[in-house]
Every structure is written in C-alpha cells, then in structure tokens.
C-alpha cells in the first residue's frame, strides 16, 4: 500500500502499484522502469490519476493501459485533467469500435485531440439519425449518413468522422451539422457539375491539386451556405479557421454569389505554385472524391431523367387526344428548385414523382437540358432471358389462381395475367420468437400497454331507452317538448359501453431479394412485436409474405391466417421468413383484398411492409407500369372498402408512394431501429 503522506510516490512504490495492474511476464520484454520513469516526476495527484486510468484501461487492453501511462505526462502538459479523461475515453471507445490500432492512433495524437478537444467526445452514432433528418430537411431527397475517417460525400451518402471532441455534446452536434451541410452543398451547389477528373490534369500533382480544390470549394460553399442558411455562419467560420494562408486571396472572389466550381478551378490554375505540395490537413473539411461522386451522380441522373421522361410522356399523351403535335418547354429555377412545364404555352403540372425527379435533376445539373427529355436510343436495362428454372416454368399451368393486372398504357386489364401460387413458409426455429421477445422485453411491454389502452375506452352512450344514469340533456329536452305540446322522447338514460372496433387487418410483408440483410431482420422483429401487441386486441389479423419472379410466378407465403392463433406454428413461420426474388406488388394486394372481403368486419385494413418500389424480373414492372398497377390494385381495394397503408424503408419512397398510395396512406421510416414501434404506432393511429 502506498504511504499516506501527500508526497509523490517513489520508484519502488510506483513499481508495486504498477505490478498490481500489469503483472508483466518477465519474458514479454516490457519493464516497469519505462513507466516508473514517466510517472516519477509527476506530483502525487497526477500519479494517482495515471494509476487510476491505467487500471481502468487495463480492463480493456493492457497495451492501451501501458501506452496511456507512458503518454499521460505529455498529455497532462497539453490538456486539462478533464480533457485528458476525454482523450483516454476516446481511445477506449476507439478500441471498442475498431480495435487496438485506432486506440493507439488516438492516444498518440495528443496534439490533434488538443486542437479539437474542449472536453467532450461525441460519437456519430449518437447523432446520425438526427443528422439524417437535418439533411432530409435541407435537400428533400434524403442522404444517408455513415462513418468514415475523413469527411466526404459521394452525393448519396455523407461520410463523417466517427467521433469528434468538442466543448459539449451540443457543440459536437453543431459541428457535425456544419460539416454535413458543407458536404451536402457540394452536391447542391455544383461541385460535381464539371468533370473534375478532366479539369485536373492527371500526373504527380493531381492529388495535391484535388486537396487544394477541396479547400477552395469549402471556401466557396461556406460563403454560399452562409448566405442561404445564416444560422450556420458561426460554425462554418470555425471550420474554415485553419485554412492555409495561401488561400486568403481566394476568399473574396469565391464568396461572390454567382461563384461556381469553375471559379475555384480557375483560381487554382492561376496559382500553379501551390501544386508542389498538398496543403496541411484541415481536420473537418471534406475531401473530394470526384470519381465516386460522378459515378453515383451519373447513375442518379440517368434514373431521374428516365422518370421525368416517362412523366412528361404521360402528360403529353393525355393531351394528345386533343392535339397532334405539341411544343414542349421546360423551365427550371435552380435557386428555388422549381420547374415549369409548358406545352404549347400552357402551363401543366407534373405528377409528383416527375416533379421530384425534376428537382433532383436541377440539384445535380443546375438546369434541365432539353436532350434529357428525348428518349435514349438504348434502354438502360434490358430484360434478359431467364434460364428456365424448372419449377417456375413447369408450374405455370397449376397456379392456385389467376389474377388480372392493370396496364396503364392500354388503360385496361390484362385478364388472368398473373399466376399466383400459395405456399406455407416452413420452419422449425422455435427459439427465434422467444429470443426477440426477450431482447426487446421493455419495448414489448410498452407496446402491450399502448395497445391495451386502445382496447376501447368506455364510452357513454346518450339517449338510451334504459341505463343506470339519467341523461340530463335528454330530460330537459323531453320536458321542453312536452310543454311545447310535442311528444317527448322516451330515451332519457345514459349507459356506459365499451366500443366494438370490429376490424380485420392483413399484413403483407415484402420477401423480395432486396430485403436481404437488416431489412429482413427488421421485418421479422417488427412482426414479432406486432403480434405480441395485437394479441392484446380482439382484432382478426393475417400475415402473408410475398415475392415473385415474373407474372408467371407470383408467390404468396402464408405466415398467419385470420383464424389462426399466434402459436408456435406462426412463430416458427415468422422465423423462417427470408429474402427471395422480386417485388410484384399488384397480385398480393389483390389476393389479400379478396381475403379481407371475406372477413366479417366493419373496417378492413391492408398494411404492406416493403423496402421500395415495385420491381420484377424481365418485364417493365419496375418502371411506371408497376407503380400504376400497384396503384390500381389499391384503388380496387379502396373501392371494395379496404383501406391500405404502406410502411416503406426506401429513402426515395415519397416521390412515387404519394401517387401509388394516395395522399397520407403511407409512412417512410428514417430509422430502422424504430421500425417495430412504428408499425404498431401506425396501426394504432389508423384504428383509433
């Protein structure tokens, strides 16, 4: 035990304490002497601090503890006690997240930490959902947020450092917001509108040029953002703070409102001396990876141009009945993302998915070049011949039922077009449901409570012929009626009664191949929780999965029938849900509509859970055709008195879902972890 006097610990005492923490194997080559030398000159308080943290770190990894003790004297010269703690915690978190190397790098980077550190470390995973919503708000088209060592964007995902250290968590969130906004601005304000690879000559200086250009663009975009979103100005100024002084002369020209990426390139061309070496790293400013960004951007432009082209073509077709030739003009306002479609001078409204596509194109291109509206000679995607996969080919004549499909171009049904097969999912994993239930026990309890509350509150029925209480309003009225000479109503009582909800619900689960991975897991967990919660109610419900491979094989998988109990059979079938083929949505909707109509309930509800737009192999179901057929199937459902609701995990969902499902009958989820809760909430919202 150390002596209790306040003096610093001597070499022997330190050795004994360290031995209690490390107990080195003599053969490891490590010795305490290095550590004792490091700690001996420190005041007692700091020695104790070091020993305490060595002990903490040793529980994680001895190597970290060793390095921490070794570096701590240096760290304490640079950092306050609190900051040093944050520095150590950041290293330990680094180990938890990505292993020893990260922890060591973080420990060694005392300087870097000191520059950024004012005491707190904020991990990206604590704010990524929030940042995602922030970016959704800015762009309206949704950007993913993901962690990477350096900040950059490929225009679909914003990559941010996994953790940053600043004064407080809130300040950390502000820092993240500014970095993310600056990266979003690259796509919004045209950094990738020119071919940067072509603009920057290949060669030894290319990397340096790209790094300088990244800083120039940061300068330009920060000025632009400061104008558009003044609330970010302060934080943006911090980001730009340690920009190399060589760039000072670029500040004014690039802050001009009309400055574009060409101006950054031009400035760089006029300063060739900079290309000799790359700039020193600016911690938070995004890097540029034009090849990645262009690849995604080009794919997106192709896709959105196709959507816009289809929308416009449809618009023209609807006019064609009146006129033969039409003059088409498209006017885009890049500032406001507004677009005007004029046909022969008359302004027309684009359908929502066309408008969204046009806005996306304006963000990418700054305008809508007329040639985009001319159909490309080669279709981007060509149906390939499907090698006859025995089952699919031969079962054609034995379909369980044939369903019609809507062809929006013909404005007519294709009769008996879809061959529907009904299967039962087989499975014997009885442990899955109890495991999910245990893992999410608090959530299941919360859901059960919510559903229990929904079971129907007691309601007072007024003006009843009999009941335990007198209805004063009715009585007054009756007396008045009698005085007035009219015959008074005999219904003078109130009675409390529990509401009958009389509702049948069918749940349709996307089992297409694209749900592979977390979506499938999330769907299954959502179903478990949903069933757990629904057991609180008396509503009848069924669950079916769907998948398909062309119109000749639309598979429906029975998971739970209306009159089936939520027992081990159902539970093992939920466990056995797995990704299969494609998403032909019309047939399953039509089938379940029929089934719902067979249910003796006052309200009928169809809830579909999917990961994206309708899609099928071979034919053009993935285009407007699929959307229109799905919409038609839902219209049929609606006309038959079945309400439908879609929960989708597709970030691009809203564009076409609004058209497909009609306003308000869908929900897009931003956070997978919330899926189970959300499904239950939507159900509640719908049926309350």
């Amino acid at each position, binding site marked *: 035990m150390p002596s209790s006097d306040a003096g610093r610990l001597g070499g022997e005492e330190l050795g004994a304490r360290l031995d209690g923490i490390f107990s080195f194997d003599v053969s490891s080559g490590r010795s305490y002497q290095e550590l004792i030398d490091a700690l001996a000159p420190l005041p007692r308080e700091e020695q104790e601090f070091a020993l305490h943290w060595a002990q903490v770190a040793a529980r994680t990894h001895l190597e970290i503890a060793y390095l921490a003790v070794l570096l701590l004297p240096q760290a304490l010269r640079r950092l306050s006690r609190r900051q040093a703690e944050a520095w150590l915690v950041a290293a330990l978190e680094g180990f938890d997240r990505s292993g020893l190397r990260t922890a060591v790098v973080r420990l060694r980077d005392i300087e870097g930490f000191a520059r950024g550190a004012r005491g707190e470390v904020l991990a990206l995973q604590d704010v990524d959902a929030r940042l995602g919503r*922030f970016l*959704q*708000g*800015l762009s309206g088209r949704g950007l993913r947020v993901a962690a990477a060592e350096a900040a950059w964007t490929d225009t679909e995902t914003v990559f941010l450092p996994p953790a940053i250290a600043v004064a407080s968590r809130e300040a950390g969130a502000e820092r993240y*917001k500014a970095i993310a906004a600056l990266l979003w601005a690259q796509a919004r304000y045209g950094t990738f509108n020119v071919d940067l690879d072509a603009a920057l000559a290949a060669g030894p200086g290319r990397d340096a040029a790209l790094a300088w250009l990244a800083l120039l663009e940061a300068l330009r975009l920060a000025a632009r953002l400061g104008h558009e979103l003044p*609330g970010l100005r302060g934080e943006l100024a911090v980001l730009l703070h340690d920009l190399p002084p060589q760039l000072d002369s670029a500040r004014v020209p690039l802050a001009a409102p009309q400055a574009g990426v060409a101006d950054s390139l031009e400035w760089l061309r006029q300063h060739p001396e900079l290309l000799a070496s790359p700039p020193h790293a600016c911690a938070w400013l995004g890097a540029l990876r034009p090849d990645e960004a262009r690849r995604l951007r080009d794919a997106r432009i192709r896709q959105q141009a196709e959507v816009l082209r289809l929308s416009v073509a449809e618009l023209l077709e609807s006019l064609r009945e009146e006129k033969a030739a039409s003059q088409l003009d498209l006017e885009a306002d890049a500032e406001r993302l507004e677009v005007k479609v004029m046909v022969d001078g008359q302004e027309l409204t684009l359908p929502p998915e066309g408008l969204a596509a046009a806005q996306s194109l304006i963000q990418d291109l700054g305008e809508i070049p007329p040639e985009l509206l001319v159909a490309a000679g080669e279709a981007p995607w060509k149906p390939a011949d499907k090698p006859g996969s025995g089952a699919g080919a031969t079962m054609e004549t034995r379909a369980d039922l044939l369903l019609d499909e809507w062809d929006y171009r013909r404005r007519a049904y294709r009769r008996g077009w879809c061959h529907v097969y009904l299967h039962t999912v087989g499975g014997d994993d009885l442990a899955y449901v109890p495991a999910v239930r245990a893992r999410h026990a608090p959530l299941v309890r919360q859901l059960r409570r919510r559903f229990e509350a929904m079971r129907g509150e007691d309601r007072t029925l007024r003006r009843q012929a009999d009941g335990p209480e007198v209805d004063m309003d009715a009585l007054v009225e009756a007396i008045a*009626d009698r005085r007035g000479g009219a015959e008074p109503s005999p219904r003078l009582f109130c009675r409390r009664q529990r509401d009958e909800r009389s509702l049948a619900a069918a749940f349709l689960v996307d089992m297409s191949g694209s749900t592979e991975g977390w979506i499938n897991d999330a769907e299954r967990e959502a179903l478990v929780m949903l069933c757990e919660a629904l057991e609180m109610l008396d509503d009848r419900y069924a669950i079916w999965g769907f998948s398909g491979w062309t119109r000749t094989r639309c598979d429906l998988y029975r998971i739970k029938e209306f009159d089936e109990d939520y027992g081990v059979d159902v539970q093992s079938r939920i466990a056995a849900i797995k990704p299969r083929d494609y998403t032909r949505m019309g047939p399953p909707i039509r089938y379940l509509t029929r089934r719902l109509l067979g249910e003796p309930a006052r309200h009928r509800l169809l809830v579909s859970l999917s990961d994206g737009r309708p899609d099928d192999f071979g034919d053009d179901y993935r285009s407007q055709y699929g959307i229109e057929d799905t919409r038609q199937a839902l219209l049929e459902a609606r006309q038959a008195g079945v309400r439908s609701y879609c929960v989708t995990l597709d970030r691009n969902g809203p564009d076409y879902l609004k058209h497909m499902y009609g306003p308000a009958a869908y929900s897009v989820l931003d956070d997978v972890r919330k899926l189970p809760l959300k499904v239950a909430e939507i159900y509640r919202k*719908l049926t*309350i």
Partner: protein
Amino acid sequence: MNRPHMHALAPELETFAAEPYYQPVGRELELFAAAAQKKLPVLLKGPTGCGKTRFVEYMAWKLGRPLVTVACHDDLTSADLVGRYLLAGEETVWLDGPLTAAVRAGAICYLDEVVEARKDTTVVIHPLTDTRRVLPVEKRGELVRAPDDFLLVVSYNPGYQSVLKELKQSTRQRFIALDFDYPPAELEAAIVARETGIAGEIAAQLVKIAGLTRNLKGQGLDEGASTRLLVHAGHLIAAGVAPREACQAAIGRALTDDGDSVASVDDLIRAVF
C-alpha cells in the same frame, strides 16, 4: 318567445365591415364567386393553417354576406347544427342552431373540419346541398327554404390518417371542390410580412424554415409548418422575441411532441436563424 337573455346564446352572424386580408394564389376567388352565384356548395380541401378560414372570411366580405362559422368536433350532433328547445323558467324556447340561423339569414355557413363531426350530422346538410335547398327542422315541423344568398361551405384536411374519418362519397359529391396548399415561397413571405409587420427578409427566412420542415413530412412529422405557424412566429418576433426562440415555440414545439422530431426541427431553425 325571444327573451333578451336568450340573445347571448343565439349563433353569431359575423359581418365584415373591413376587408379581411387575403392573398389569392390561384383562381379560387373566381371559382368561389361563380359557385356562389350558381348556389353550389363549396368544399375546401387542404392542410391545416394554409388559409382556408381566412379565404371564407374574405369571400363573405367580398360577397357582402354574413358568415356563420362552426368548428366541428366529434361530439357535434345534428341538434347542435339545427337547433333545440330550451327551458326558460316555465316556458320552452326554441333556439336556432348555427346552420338554421345561417339559412334564415341568407348567410354563408362554414363548417370547418367537417369530417370531425359525427356521421349523422352530414345527413342534415344533404337536402341543403342539392336543388331542394331546404333545411327540415323536424322538432318544429318546419321546412326552412334557403334564400338565394345562402351558401354552404365545408372544409376538411385530407392529410388525416384515420380510417374512420373520411368524407363519404354521397356527401363529397355534392360540392364544388377547391384545393388549397401553402402558397409559393415569395407569396407566402409577403403574406407573413403583411400579417405580422415583420421585415420581408425575416419573413423570407421563416418561409425557408417552413420549406425545410415540409421536407420532413412523412419522416417523423405528420405535417410541415403551416402558414399559420409562420404567422404566429412572426407575431412573436414582432413582439420582441428573438427569432430562434420564436420559431422554437411557434413552429418546432407546435408541430410535434416527439423529442427527436423537435430536435430535428430545431436543427433546421438554427441553420436559418
């Protein structure tokens, strides 16, 4: 019959001496005026707080007719609309409901959020909405014939997500329907500035915030910020509240209770102010 103290309970016929401020967005003035001239009932569709009520007030002023507004709720019965007998001392007194009062006065009767009312109440308005244009007052055995100036206007917000609340086809197909939405950005800023007296620049920033929140619709928010919320925020700012705080109170917290969503809206507010 009509005792003085009963007047307090009588439905209010609002008349507009001064022109209420309304900024037309499309052709709604002309369509409404034409419908009024041809005695066709009007259905206003649109999200909450986009100016439907103000529009009706403006049209009442413009057409020089009194206005009776009924905010519908789920306990609204047909008696609440048509009227009932009340006891006053030893006498019974008939009191016209707001609908009956409007019919008698040749007023515009505006049933706000009509889907909220109980299903059976909508049936009362059916005979008023076709060529008969009559209101049967069953209790009194009276058939009130609507004068030419009577006009029925109802509104509803198609954004509601409940299965149980939707306008029946038999009801909706009696109306001329006008779509309302938030005005384009510049117009909306002008409206907010005009309503609250704040500078155009600040109004434009409020509109920017509204646009950002509308991008979040379906991603945690049921609705984006309405023009009404912007006006509220503008009023707070005009009263000396700092813009950020005004927006947090009038927009962020007004939109949602969900902690995450409030934080997201807050992030967007702070990006602008």
